[in-house]
């Protein structure tokens, strides 16, 4: 059984204005988050990602369907029992949401107090967390004295204080610059590997997904439009929304305007061949072409690495008499798409 199970979950918010339509924020989502994994949830603004997170820790009740966390179905629980469940689910935010009336220390102590951890144990736990996130010297600073990256580290330390099994990261890097984002991504990976925390990473930044997530679900209009391993989703995005997201970091398939430009310069047949590590090698593909005397030239493409495996798309101009025959032979072994 998965650590988090969503079954046909829907969430409708009441209309914003009197007489308006209710807002269907999440619309029939079924998904599992397995223990120990990092799941990326991707989608544009308004897709329902934050709502999904708030259903997992029951900050909002579902309108339909069931959410099960560690075997407990949340709809059956009282508010008091839900509070206990929430203590086992950490959450970090885009705007950090630190308590400005408390020091870094006070921020991290808060969830310990809520969880009823005896004060005598706070000292050890808080310094352990501060060392883990690399802020041991900032314990007595106030949030406004920290940089964005440091604030998010405090957010992470605070979220981990009560030793949750799950961490929800809602756009946790979206307010950070690329370098700081990478630091936070590295920290989250350590949270997953060293502490065994299952992480749900909500983001619209594909770079973050690419570097962090084991698996991805893509959301649009409250539904999951695509899901799969991060490698598969990046190597072969199926849905149009996914393709747009993937293209923000992997730009190996020529866009329409690029195609027009390529056409102008390359009169031969243009095809795009998708390569994936563990499948047909480039040598084999080019061998097929050479053996038939087909001339070829690489005109566009790239090779990417995701989760330690490579994939790529190469656009090739083919010339010669036996192009058709070569393409037929290739299509049986790799994904070949004619560029039109």
């Amino acid at each position: 059984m998965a650590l988090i199970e969503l079954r046909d979950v829907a969430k409708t918010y009441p209309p914003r204005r009197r007489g308006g339509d209710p807002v269907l924020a999440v619309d029939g989502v079924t998904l599992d988050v397995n223990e120990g994994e990092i799941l990326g949830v991707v989608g544009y603004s308004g897709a329902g990602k934050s709502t999904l997170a708030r259903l997992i820790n029951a900050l909002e009740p579902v309108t339909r369907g069931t959410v099960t966390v560690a075997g407990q179905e949340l709809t059956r629980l009282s508010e008091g029992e839900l509070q206990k469940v929430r203590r086992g689910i950490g959450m970090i935010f885009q705007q950090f949401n630190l308590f400005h009336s408390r020091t870094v220390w006070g921020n991290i102590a808060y969830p310990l107090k809520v969880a009823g951890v005896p004060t005598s144990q706070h000292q050890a736990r808080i310094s352990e967390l501060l060392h883990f996130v690399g802020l041991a010297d900032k314990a007595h600073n106030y949030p406004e004295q920290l940089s964005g990256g440091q604030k998010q580290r405090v957010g992470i330390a605070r979220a981990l204080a009560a030793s949750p099994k799950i961490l929800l990261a809602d756009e946790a890097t979206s307010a950070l610059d690329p370098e700081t984002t990478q630091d936070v991504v590295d920290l989250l990976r350590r949270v997953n590997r060293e502490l065994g925390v299952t992480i749900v990473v909500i983001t619209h930044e594909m770079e973050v997904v690419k570097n962090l997530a084991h698996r991805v679900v893509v959301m649009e209009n409250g539904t999951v439009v695509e899901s799969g391993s991060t490698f598969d989703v990046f190597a072969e995005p199926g849905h149009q929304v996914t393709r747009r997201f993937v293209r923000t970091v992997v730009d190996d398939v020529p866009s329409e305007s690029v195609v027009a430009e390529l056409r102008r310069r390359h009169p031969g047949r243009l095809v795009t061949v998708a390569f994936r590590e563990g499948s047909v090698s480039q040598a084999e593909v080019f061998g097929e072409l050479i053996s038939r005397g087909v001339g070829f030239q690489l005109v566009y493409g790239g090779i990417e690495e995701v989760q330690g495996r490579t994939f790529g798309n190469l656009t090739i101009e083919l010339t010669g008499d036996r192009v058709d025959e070569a393409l037929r032979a290739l299509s049986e072994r790799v994904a070949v798409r004619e560029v039109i």
Partner: protein
Amino acid sequence: MDRVIELGPQFLEATIETIVLVAVGVTVGGLLGLIVGTGLYVTRKGGLLSNGVVNLLLNIVVNVFRPIPFILLAVGLQPFVRQVFGVGIGNVAAAVVIVFAAAFGIARIVEQNLVSVPPGVLEAARAMGASRTRVIFTVLLPEAFGPLILGYTFAFVAIVDMTAIVGTIGAGGLGNLALQYGYRQFNPWVTWSAILIVIVIVQLGQFAGNAGARKVLRR
């Protein structure tokens, strides 16, 4: 000028009366205002204890009583004060109407200050498993503490103003002294001495409030 020295004991008594009335207004009225103001905020739509009916009732009560000019409230409440507290005039009655008026004024100030707390911070605390009431007392109010001090300082000045008016319903204090021995006996020395003491009280309160807020807001 000689008259001012002659009235020394009266000045002392009036000053103490004013300070006591202000203190009662700020503390008791302030506490009631804090409760009503927090109620107004948390019962809003999407609030921690969202409740449309309670919110509507609180709003109606506050909107009815708050705009009434204080002098009219003071005389208007007299029958009720007499019913409940036995006397309709004097310092006790004055304290009751000051508390009443201060509570509604402060309620709105508190509500406005609480709005300035980012909702995400409250959500973070809830996500940690804190109960709604716990979030109110350990996050909402502490996070708004700095602005609240400034709001109360503002209210303090308004309450000093009220204490000068309650002479009308037979209360003592510097306002009454200025009217009785200064204005009516054509002695501006007395009037201005009373005014001077009021200025000092206001300045001290303002200074303490600003210093407190600066300390809490760390700037």
